[in-house]
């Protein structure tokens, strides 16, 4: 019997099982049918990509200031260029752009601060973001104080309005949603039935109907001269609508926590709010991240519906620009731009939520 006391030294994987060629062989060409499909797929991709690149980059016109600068063979990005500041700020007066810029800068700084784990004072920044920032942003954007000229809300628009609607909707919907979800699971009959009625009402009505009611019907019921600003009406409608959806997402998360957790907490003598705040919610919210982010993304895209009540969000201002007789016929460029902007925001939200899930993962994941 021969014993080999030495371990065989580690060897690289056999040639032909690593490297890009091997990857291609095992994933794309591992058999005649798969090879055929790969080639077919490449051909379809070729048919799609080449004309797109040709249109969007090679034949495109980039510089100029009017439609005469566009050959109309490829894309006319001159249109986007000429209208860019309008797409960002809407019809906000251009000499006041600096005010919107400050708000933008604060907004993105606060988000970055909250999102990057290394940065300190999270609690204070959060308090500032939720309490002081909305006031500062309102004073800056609306004006009327400190010698700032007033800019009425029907001049707000573009990306600025989209972000405003989305962030107010998100920040408003989350706490209302949590309260509604807890209320729906409550054992108190009045609280419970109120929450059920509220959720089922708002979930049962299309958002477009709510916005129409807010803009067409509501003014008729209010005494004249007591008109509520249409942006405020849209914000309230959007927030209440989203909070109903949010409540159901949160309720789903709450139900996934085993009953033993709450019973154990109760056995320790914890009050209701302590049980919820210290035991149930931290576990549940973590599991709800995909659902919550899903709701946020759909809210972000739903904001375009305010277009039908005459507010110029990002998509609305693009459409308004398309109806300028000096720029007729560039709808494709306009819509591609709007789609790209929406994709940037939705994709970053989705990536951040994946990162958050990994970070908070404490073994619930299977």
């Amino acid at each position, binding site marked *: 019997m021969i014993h080999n006391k030495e371990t065989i030294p580690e060897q690289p994987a056999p040639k032909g099982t690593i490297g890009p060629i091997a990857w291609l062989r095992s994933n794309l060409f591992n058999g005649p049918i798969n090879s055929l499909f790969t080639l077919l797929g490449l051909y379809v991709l070729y048919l799609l990509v080449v004309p797109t690149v040709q249109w969007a980059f090679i034949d495109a016109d980039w510089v100029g200031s009017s*439609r005469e600068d566009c050959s*109309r063979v490829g894309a006319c990005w001159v249109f986007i260029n*000429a*209208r860019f500041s*309008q797409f960002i700020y*809407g*019809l*906000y*007066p*251009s000499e006041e752009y600096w005010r919107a810029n400050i708000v933008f800068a604060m907004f993105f700084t606060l988000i970055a601060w909250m999102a990057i784990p290394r940065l300190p004072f999270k609690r204070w920044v959060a308090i500032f973001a939720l309490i002081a920032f909305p006031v500062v942003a309102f004073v800056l954007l609306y004006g009327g104080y400190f010698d700032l000229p007033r800019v*009425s809300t*029907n001049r707000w628009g573009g990306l600025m309005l989209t972000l405003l609607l989305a962030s107010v909707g998100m920040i408003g919907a989350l706490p209302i949603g949590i309260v509604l979800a807890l209320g729906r699971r409550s054992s108190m009959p009045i609280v419970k039935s109120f929450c059920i009625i509220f959720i089922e009402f708002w979930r049962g009505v299309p958002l477009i109907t709510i916005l*129409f009611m807010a*803009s*067409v*019907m509501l*003014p*008729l*019921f*209010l*005494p*004249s*001269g007591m*008109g509520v600003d*249409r942006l405020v009406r849209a914000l309230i409608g959007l927030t209440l609508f989203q909070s109903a959806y949010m409540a159901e997402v949160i309720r789903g998360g709450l139900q996934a926590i085993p009953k033993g957790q709450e019973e154990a907490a109760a056995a320790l003598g914890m009050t209701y709010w302590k049980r919820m705040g210290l035991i149930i919610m931290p576990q549940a919210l973590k599991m709800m991240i995909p659902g919550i982010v899903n709701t946020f993304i759909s809210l972000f895209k739903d904001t375009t519906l305010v*277009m*039908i*009540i*005459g507010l*110029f969000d990002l998509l*609305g*201002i693009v*459409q*308004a*620009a*398309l*109806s*300028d*007789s*000096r720029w*007729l*016929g560039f*709808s494709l460029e306009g819509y591609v731009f709007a789609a790209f902007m929406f994709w940037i925001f939705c994709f970053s939200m989705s990536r951040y939520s994946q990162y958050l899930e990994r970070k908070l993962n404490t073994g619930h994941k299977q």
Partner: protein
Amino acid sequence: MLNKKYLALMVSAGSITLAGMSSAHATTLEDTIDSGEVQCGVSDGLPGFSAPDDDGNWQGIDVDVCRAVAAAVLGDSEAVNYISLNAVERFTALQSGEVDVLSRNTTWTTTRDTTLGLNFTGVTFYDGQGFMVSKDLGVSSVDELDGAAICIQSGTTTELNLADYFSANDMEFDPIVFDTSEQTVGGYEAGRCDVLTSDTSQLAALRIQLDDPEGSEILSDVISKEPLGPVVRQGDDQWFNIVKWSLFAMMNAEEYGVDSENVDEMLESEDPNIARLLGEDGNYGEEMGLEADWAYQIISQVGNYGESFDRNVGMDSPLEIERGINELWTEGGIQYAPPVR
């Protein structure tokens, strides 16, 4: 149908409430002077009528009505708060007081004038349903279109007008229906139909979007009446007069040859019509609660009707719509303003 009835009911209920309230409030003119801005409802973007330009300023023939009212009332044509409204909410916005003038390519019809608690103040643009054909077809009149394939946008009165006209004249047509105006143009361009029909103001905008605008022409025949004009609430006759005469002042100015360039020289004019219009002879603004130079302000800041037409929809604009029946009565059209005296 039920929805519409319900809405109409709510609207009338609303206007009754409003009528009750308005006595307790200041007049529209006082409110406007207080706030320093004319609250003007415009469309959410219609080429040549109201759309924001590259600098975010509203431009268009409808917008010029708002500017004229602001110039007459406040002496500053820029003192306007534009509120963009869609087709459904436009009347509610006016009834509820959110806007004081609605200048949004609104067709003057009996129903709208008599049941909504509103008043039409005049006609800024006589529109009508027209036809766009390819020049290769060699067609010069609607009556030659028997048996043609016609592209239409669905769900609009355009479809009904077309059917009415063709059956009344004992002609056949093959309707090709599309959902949006962009699809309609696409269908026309792809050769799915020989003819595209829509309001003439729309046709001009659609024609520009063709790959070869020169290859198509808009027939001069129209088969429906679409008089578009500004609207105000009932119950404030002073404001009604102001909006009405702001438009009349622009038309009178064109008739007497006064425009934004020569208005200062015209102040010296011997012509009594011009002297009365510009407030040099008598004070016709006073009765409306305005300054004597109300019309001077309109003409110097906004221009006369012809200037506004040419700049926004006419030959100086990309739309290049012919004046046609929108020409003054002295030039063979039907635009006619009562005299200032």
